[in-house]
């Protein structure tokens, strides 16, 4: 097979529910695999926070540096050309025309890349420009994506699928439903993560759902319902010579009915016997051969728990979340191997890169088990239901490795880093059982709670269909809790507790003592964890693997401690506010530490990351980011120090405890990190520096809170003081809404105070990301938000270099920053957030760690902030002057939302963060960058009809010029009642439509349902406050019907202006290097 010279890889774009950081892993591995073969790589991916979009930093071209770890040159692992562009046909065609690649990889960027690839093939673009699809042929992809074809193809080899009928119209779907019978499963074709799918109980429900689904997908499948069957997955690899292996099988603890992305998943399967395991394995291989997959794919089964009957649910002919998990679970580098197979290699020709001795054509044998647990963030959304089902809502996941089920379960639940809700557990049995029967994100806690209250395993099984084997294991934990509470901590009991996964802190809580005391006692009793390797062959062959975990089911370590080591703490699970940006930062820190001659250690628990690839560090501990576990590793390895500032808030919170335990923390003194974290200390610090800040107070009773709010004047920002980083924040406009908030927070007391601060309206937000060494500033980048204060910085559209901020303001931002940096003696990365109004500049937050925007500012300015920060932390000085303000281009970062998945949530920005990812694009002008960036986040440019609904007089006035511009651009405006009257009165032609609640025609709702509208600008009347009004229904409908929506005035203004400027100019497909040249 002819090897291609230049290959285009399609990335997956911004992180969203159903498509997260796992595709940074798969894309990065593909790039590495291609570069090893001397193939040039072109990448399109607007996700600027990914590692796959890295190029060598600094002045271009820079001579490639030797990477300390394996001698490979740094540049050799990276793409040759990177395009930060929307993953749409329009841009992909431009890139193909320009780059003329002779090969394309579609399987490494999730459903986004696959869909784009199929579109490029269908339009004839690939053929026209001679681009060969590498790996799985397009025909095979279509067989797996088109449900009707899929079923037909599997029928050809007598493989069972659920009874099903494909339908493209509502009437056809209803007819099919009659044939199959209710309840049934409705699935949307061509959708990622099961979007729009669900159990349907009757015809009325079906017709309602169909209206929605047909907006975003041309076809649905009406299927036999297999709820309650076991859900089993296999990861299958096949090469062009027809060698075929299954790398891993996985069992969903939550049976069919719960999306695999919402399920607890264990690998390998635990309740399957040999006959079942190998029957399904055999079918997997038959199916994959029949379809002709070349590379990697995932196959999902429903397996009847009693009869052993099976159905094939689906095949994903691409790398997926499950394949990333399987890869981390087994140590088998699926994406890397898949890329090599796409180039024409066969499996026996490839080596097992873990053992380096044995072949890649084998099936890993595990001598441990892993458990994946989803991380949800539903509570961030008001109105959103916490019910889980056949659609994915989780935003991240963790993976625990151990040698007993109890051990991995308890480890995984801690890794989630979600504080246990004691009030939830105190609920009556009936309520818990309700959550078990109709599962919510709390189901696992409901099971624990019910077992503690004496509910039988049989009863829970009956309600949940979860296999008794798993429930018995949970019961073991509950029984041991009771034993621990009663019994003396003998060596045997201590060991049993640790083997069943109890942390020192858990034991301390049960024994009413503290964590440090339990740790000391445990060490005295000689109950210590063992470090074990993941070697893919269960110890059968010697392996030089550096992939490690800790267990209490061990008598000895597999390894000896290293020399001259430095630990980097990873980010833990992806969650809203903690995403792939921190994985990027951690990986950069590893790279620099490696270059500086350290043996690097990564500790992380998130399988959707690049940092947990075993060739990113010298040692990878796939472990908890807890004080206990980090200390276990530190005590064994005795490293020179630990980097806590590149992984976000989880490692940052460990800084002070680690220092107190005598561990050296690289960079800023943890006591100073704490001064920035502690609201009182930081406020005092600002006062001494004479830096302005919004007035605030910490209150321990509702009445005191109201008094404080009245003193500051409404609106005020209110939040619980113990939760960091914007969680559960709210804006109260008046006394009534403050009381409502306080009531919801339920518990305002000396133990749980609330913080009230003055909320400044119509203020601009400015951020500074920087690096300092011993209190002096080395490099900084100032970014401004498009949206005014009131939109969480993680949800804001961010511009670099700033376009509207006065030089005077910039100078003052710098001055204040320098003063803070000096006072906290910062060494390493930091971020300060400001609000500016009129001539007043106030500091609202300071994080003495890398912020979410570090990859953005690094890539836009061309200077790797983390590299500079890591060098600073190691004590290296720098004389270099960095230019970060005067750039010849503009970059805009846009939030990526996943509202489509969070049913019931109001899709508008609040002070709480709601976005799940971000994208960024460059442009020669602000307008160009903004449009591209919005397109990259899934926005579509309007063609003709725009619906506007502008709440509040101020919004109407300020947006009047923008409305006029839209009309000038020949858009037809539809406006709701008051907006229409206002526009008409001001000479802007528009058509008046009635609000949904009036029921009068022409009505907003019918207009939307007719599919007539291609953009909705809906600015809520009551800013910052949650509301349940007509506006909400319009916004929600827009999301559910996939109509582009803008809800922020500043963004609406900026968008319309940009559209006006750009009209006819076209949006250019320029690579990152071209902008920097």
């Amino acid at each position, binding site marked *: 097979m002819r090897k291609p010279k230049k290959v285009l890889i399609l990335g997956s774009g911004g992180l969203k529910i159903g498509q997260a950081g796992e595709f940074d892993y798969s894309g990065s591995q593909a790039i590495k695999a291609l570069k090893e073969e001397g193939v040039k790589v072109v990448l399109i991916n607007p996700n600027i926070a990914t590692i796959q979009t890295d190029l060598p930093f600094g002045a271009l071209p820079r001579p490639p540096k030797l990477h300390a770890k394996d001698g490979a040159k740094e540049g050799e692992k990276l793409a040759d050309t990177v395009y930060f562009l929307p993953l749409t046909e329009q841009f992909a065609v431009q890139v193909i025309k320009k780059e003329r690649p002779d090969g394309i990889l579609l399987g490494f960027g999730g459903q986004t890349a696959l869909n784009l690839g199929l579109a490029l093939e269908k339009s004839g673009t690939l053929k026209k420009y001679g681009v060969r699809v590498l790996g799985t042929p397009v025909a095979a992809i279509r067989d797996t994506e088109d449900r009707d074809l899929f079923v037909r193809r599997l029928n050809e080899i007598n493989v069972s699928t659920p009874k099903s009928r494909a339908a493209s119209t509502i009437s056809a779907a209803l007819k099919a439903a009659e044939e199959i019978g209710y309840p049934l499963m409705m699935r949307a074709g061509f959708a990622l993560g099961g979007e729009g799918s669900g159990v349907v109980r009757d015809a009325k429900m079906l017709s309602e759902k169909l209206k929605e689904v047909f907006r975003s997908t041309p076809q649905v499948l009406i299927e036999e319902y297999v709820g309650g069957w076991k859900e089993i997955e296999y990861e299958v690899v096949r090469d062009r010579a027809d060698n075929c292996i299954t790398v891993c099988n996985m069992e969903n603890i939550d049976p069919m009915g719960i999306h695999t992305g919402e399920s607890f998943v264990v690998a390998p399967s635990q309740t399957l*016997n040999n*006959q079942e395991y190998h029957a399904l*394995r055999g079918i997997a291989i038959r199916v994959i051969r029949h379809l002709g997959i070349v590379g990697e794919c995932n196959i999902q089964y429903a397996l009847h728990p*009693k009869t052993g009957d099976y159905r094939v649910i689906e095949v994903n002919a691409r790398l997926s979340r499950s394949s990333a998990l399987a890869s981390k679970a087994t140590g088998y580098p699926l994406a890397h191997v898949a890329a090599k197979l796409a180039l024409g290699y066969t499996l*026996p020709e490839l080596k097992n890169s873990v053992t380096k001795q044995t072949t890649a*054509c084998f099936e890993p*044998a595990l001598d441990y088990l892993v458990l994946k647990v989803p991380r949800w963030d539903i509570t961030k959304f008001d109105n959103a239901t916490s019910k889980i089902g056949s659609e994915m809502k989780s935003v991240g996941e963790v993976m625990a490795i151990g040698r007993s089920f109890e051990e991995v379960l308890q480890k995984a639940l801690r890794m989630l880093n979600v504080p246990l809700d004691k009030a939830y557990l105190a609920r009556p049995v009936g309520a818990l059982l309700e959550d078990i029967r109709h599962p919510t994100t709390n189901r696992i806690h409901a099971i624990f709670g019910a077992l503690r209250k004496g509910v039988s395993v049989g009863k829970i099984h009956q309600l949940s269909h979860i296999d008794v084997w798993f429930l018995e294991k949970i019961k073991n934990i509950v029984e041991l809790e009771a034993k621990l509470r009663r019994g003396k901590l003998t060596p045997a009991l201590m060991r049993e507790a640790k083997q069943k996964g109890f942390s020192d802190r858990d034991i301390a809580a049960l024994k009413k003592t503290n964590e440090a005391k339990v740790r000391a006692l445990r060490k005295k009793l000689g109950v210590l964890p063992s470090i074990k390797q993941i070697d893919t062959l269960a110890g059968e062959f010697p392996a030089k693997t550096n992939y490690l975990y800790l267990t209490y089911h061990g008598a000895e370590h597999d390894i000896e401690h290293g020399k001259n080591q430095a630990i980097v703490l990873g980010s833990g699970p992806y969650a809203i506010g903690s995403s792939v940006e921190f994985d990027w930062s951690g990986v950069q820190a590893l790279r620099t530490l490696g270059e500086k001659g350290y043996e690097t250690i990564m500790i992380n628990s998130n399988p959707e990351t690049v940092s947990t690839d075993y060739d990113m560090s010298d040692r990878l501990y796939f472990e908890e980011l807890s004080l206990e576990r980090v200390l276990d590793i530190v005590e064994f390895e005795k490293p020179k120090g630990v980097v806590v500032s590149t992984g976000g808030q989880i490692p940052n919170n460990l800084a002070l405890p680690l220092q107190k335990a005598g561990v050296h923390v690289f960079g800023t003194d943890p006591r100073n990190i704490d001064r920035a974290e502690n609201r009182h200390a930081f406020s005092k610090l600002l006062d001494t520096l004479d830096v302005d800040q919004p007035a605030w107070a910490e209150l321990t009773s509702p009445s005191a809170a109201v008094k404080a709010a009245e003193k500051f004047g409404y609106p005020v920002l209110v939040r619980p003081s113990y939760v960091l980083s914007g969680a559960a924040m709210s804006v109260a406009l008046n006394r009534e809404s403050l009381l409502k908030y306080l009531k919801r927070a339920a518990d305002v007391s000396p133990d749980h105070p609330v913080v009230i601060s003055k909320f400044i309206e119509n203020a601009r937000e400015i951020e500074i990301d920087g690096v300092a060494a011993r209190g002096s500033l080395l490099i900084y980048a100032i970014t401004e938000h498009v949206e005014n204060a009131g939109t969480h910085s993680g949800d804001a559209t961010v511009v670099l270099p700033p376009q509207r901020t006065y030089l005077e303001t910039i100078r003052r931002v710098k001055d204040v920053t320098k003063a803070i940096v000096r006072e906290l003696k910062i060494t390493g990365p930091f971020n300060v957030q400001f609000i500016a109004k009129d001539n007043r500049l106030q500091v609202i937050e300071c994080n003495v760690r890398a912020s979410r925007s570090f990859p953005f500012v690094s890539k836009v300015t061309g200077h790797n902030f983390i590299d500079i920060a890591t060098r600073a932390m190691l004590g290296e000085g720098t004389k270099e002057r960095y230019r970060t303000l005067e750039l010849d281009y503009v970059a805009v970062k846009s939030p990526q939302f996943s509202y489509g998945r969070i049913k019931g949530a109001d899709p508008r920005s609040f002070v709480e963060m709601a976005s799940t990812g971000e994208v960024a694009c460059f442009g020669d002008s602000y307008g160009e960058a903004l449009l591209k960036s919005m397109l990259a986040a899934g926005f579509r440019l309007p063609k003709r009809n725009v619906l506007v609904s502008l709440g509040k007089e101020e919004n109407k006035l300020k947006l009047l010029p923008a409305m006029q511009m839209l009309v000038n651009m020949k858009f037809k405006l539809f406006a709701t009642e008051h907006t229409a009257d206002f526009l008409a009165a001001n000479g802007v032609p528009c058509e008046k439509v009635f609000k949904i609640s009036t029921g009068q025609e022409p009505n907003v709702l019918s207009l939307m349902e007719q599919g007539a509208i291609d953009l909705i600008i809906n600015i809520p009347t009551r800013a910052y406050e949650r509301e349940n009004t007509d506006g909400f229904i319009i916004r929600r409908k827009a999301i559910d019907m996939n109509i582009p929506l803008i809800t922020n005035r500043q963004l609406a203004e900026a968008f319309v202006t940009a559209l006006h400027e750009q009209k006819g100019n076209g949006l250019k497909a320029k690579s990152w290097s071209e902008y920097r040249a």
Partner: protein
Amino acid sequence: MKLLLKDGTTIEGKSFGANRSVAGEVVFATGMVGYPEAFTDPSYAGQILVCTYPLIGNYGVPSFAKASEGKPDASPFESRKIQIAGLVVSEYSEKYSHATAKRSLADWLKKSGVPAMSGVDTRALTKRLREHGVILGYLSSTKYGHGVSIFKDPNQENLVARVSIKKKKIYGKGRIKIIAVDCGMKENIVRSLLTRGATVIRVPWDYDFSKERYHGLLISNGPGDPIMAEKTIEHIRAAMKENKPILGVCLGNQLLALAAGAKTYKLKYGHRSQNQPCIDLIGRPSFAPPSRKASDGHSKATKGRCYITSQNHGYAVDGKSLPAGWEEWFVNANDDSNEGMLHKTKPWRSVQFHPEASPGPTDTAWIFDEFIASLKK
């Protein structure tokens, strides 16, 4: 309970099987599923088995229904009893769950008189076995420690004679008659031949089948050192003189090699797993359309194909010692050891792995298809 190793090590654990002591050769197996199949595989006779997968017993054990006359025993049992001498695991799953389960693994072990121990760092033990090679061991239910005479090398004994059937048995009524020499044959070999329509004449390891009327000869798997089965080797030689088609499986591969004049040797720690990659050096002697067949009658398409196989053997054929006329059919992709051989002109072939699987992957079941098909010609 303790496991005493001949190198002086003592490993403590918790008993969950029969309360008795037993000597044996300590070996490890890396399969993640299929303990009823594995434990009843006669090839494990005399061995104390260490499971590297840490959770054993999860899905219990089905009831053993004694087969009716003329039928092999039902899956998942590979013989009528537990064949392993003893069992060592990390964690025994006391609560089991499966629709087919009738009793717990512990109950079965106890009733079968097989001692078992949990709570062991089986990875550490496996690494020791890997580095040292298999070690003799003693699973002790008493408080006594190491003694000189407690260890016993099962390979000194004729294990084949111990596990083979005592009397000829006939299964099925197919036109094709196969003599299956039971050296410790797994039931699934019988089942595999029967489902393909053959009559299976199962004979003891030392049975002189020269007077029988048959189309093909199958030499089964079995325990221990192949050189102990001298009589079987003699009978194979006699069959070769008559040009009888032969298929060897596992021990059968070694016995056929010895009969042909090749050598066998003991592997340091054997292959006991379900993930052994074996490369087909010849190509499947296939029924593929003529266009895909090479001139020698083998399929080009499958030459170089790598199969994932199930294995359980401590001895192997020395591929370099194959006499003239023979060639290696399969080799292990990990360590290049011999995994099968065939004669260039005569109808003789054998594989070191288990095409009947059980436990393990079923990817090489086609070996039986082709054996039967070749007999029909």
